[in-house]
């Protein structure tokens, strides 16, 4: 088998991409790590035959999007994770202002925004990953940009070239 088809190669290569999509969708590091793990559990179970690396990545991202959606449907989602008693800063670096703004969007818009601006995917490719029509993807991106522009209107530079 080509080495790139090996699950551990795919995990090293695309695990962080899966994690970032899941984080964009859920806004939670813990949930993103759970999604990352689950995606590769499903890879091991399904054993898909990938034509090439792009096919593999698209498959992994699609499963990640579905798993992240499943988290939002689960009833436990309503419980907030209790914080430790002290409110001193958590150890890992937190996302910056632009990512924070995206995380403040309604959940359904975040995956499309991430796939478009981070993974540089086309609307058609995003539609396949999210299982939506191209029109639906465009509408989500369009509405997300309008919300972000409204929130960040004090910083017009952010929008140059968008």
């Amino acid at each position, binding site marked *: 088998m080509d080495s790139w088809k090996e699950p551990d190669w795919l995990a090293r290569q695309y695990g962080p991409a899966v994690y970032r999509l899941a984080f964009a969708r859920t806004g939670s590091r813990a949930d993103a790590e759970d999604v990352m793990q689950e995606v590769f559990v499903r890879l091991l179970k399904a054993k898909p035959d990938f034509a090439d690396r792009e096919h593999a990545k698209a498959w992994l991202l699609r499963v990640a999007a579905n798993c992240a959606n499943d988290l939002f449907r689960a009833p436990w989602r309503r419980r907030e994770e209790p914080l430790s008693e002290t409110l001193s800063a958590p150890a890992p670096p937190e996302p910056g202002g632009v990512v924070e703004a995206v995380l403040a969007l309604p959940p*359904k818009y975040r995956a499309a925004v991430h796939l478009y601006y981070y993974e540089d995917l086309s609307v058609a490719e995003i539609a396949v990953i999210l299982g939506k029509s191209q029109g639906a993807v465009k509408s989500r991106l369009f509405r997300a940009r309008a919300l972000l522009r409204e929130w960040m209107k004090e910083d017009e530079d952010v929008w140059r070239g968008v």
Partner: protein
Amino acid sequence: MFGAEYKREMDALEPSAAAMARLEGLTRGEAGGKPGKRFGRRAVIALALCAALAVTAVAAGPSVWSALTGHLGPFGAYVAPLTGSSTSAGVELEAVGVLSEGTAARFYLTARDKRGGRLDGHTDAAFDLEGALSWGARCLDFDGESGTLLLELEAFGLSGEAPLTLTGGTLTPGSYRVSVEPEPADGLETYQTYAQLPGFSTAAGFDGENIFRLRVRLEEGYTLSARSAAFVTFSGGSTWASGAEQVSHLSDGQDLRLEGITRENWDQVERIWLVTSYTGPLEPIEGEWTLTLDPVAAGTRRTGADFSLERPGLTVTQVQLSPLGAVVTYTGAEDALTADALRAETAAGETPAWGSFTGWNWGGEGTAIWRYERPVEPENVASLTLLGETVPLAR
């Protein structure tokens, strides 16, 4: 640029070393790979997604028309009635009417909760639309007695008179988008409530380490649907530096630690505002509705097929005039056309005022829409001027 900044910030986010070690252990087939805990005991919520399509020709009742025309004012006379309905997840979605402007249209729908008690006046409606782009739907009215929402779904980029298809969506009652400027207090014990935001409160002030914090608190039954973000402007004109805030989850909300703001530089802070969103206490409803929406083109005057108006970085390809206003189709940058670019003049020498200016732009393909304050019949417009040039409109 938004995209470049988003990439840069996302690149800095990595899964923990422990998570990668677990992942590599799993994929190498080693024992002890921790299963995704959320998925091992995932409960399947039976939403009873009834995908049955029920198309019936039902005219909207008088109360719906009354609410619609009340909202639209003088433009209500131009609403073309529509028929058709679809029921899914216990909600009947019904087409009521359309205000068409050519390549843009506003569709009016009702969503009736047949089970009762699941919708409210703060319901966010998101539908998938084939055949056009859409901002989404906004709630115009809610009749609590019948559990019926009146929704306005705005669509752009319609191609001719071909009908559109609404294919499913989500109704999320109790949806609140928050953009507030919390009042700082001495310490973080004083919470501020907001009249239009039930179950939501904030505290703002310095902590024991002299760092400014914002606290978001929700009452039982409400849930944050976003990670809260703070935006700050300083008197020198600068804005909030990315990576300068830390968000922590609390049992009843979120805490934002704004390290860049201390008592020492507090006098330079001009404005702090908090953005987030939350829902509650009702559950979202996902439905697989299927509804055909006919744009029913309004009587419009439009430019001919050969029309083109060019400026540096801009090419206008079509102008359409309806009783509602004007729709301009172009290629160019998002800000290529501004509100003052278009002027109409009647035969009586009057200049009808524009009530609103909006539009969309996708990869340089754009639509700009000007809407009158009051309707003006297209045949009463003696001249239309765009960027100083007279637009030739067919009668």
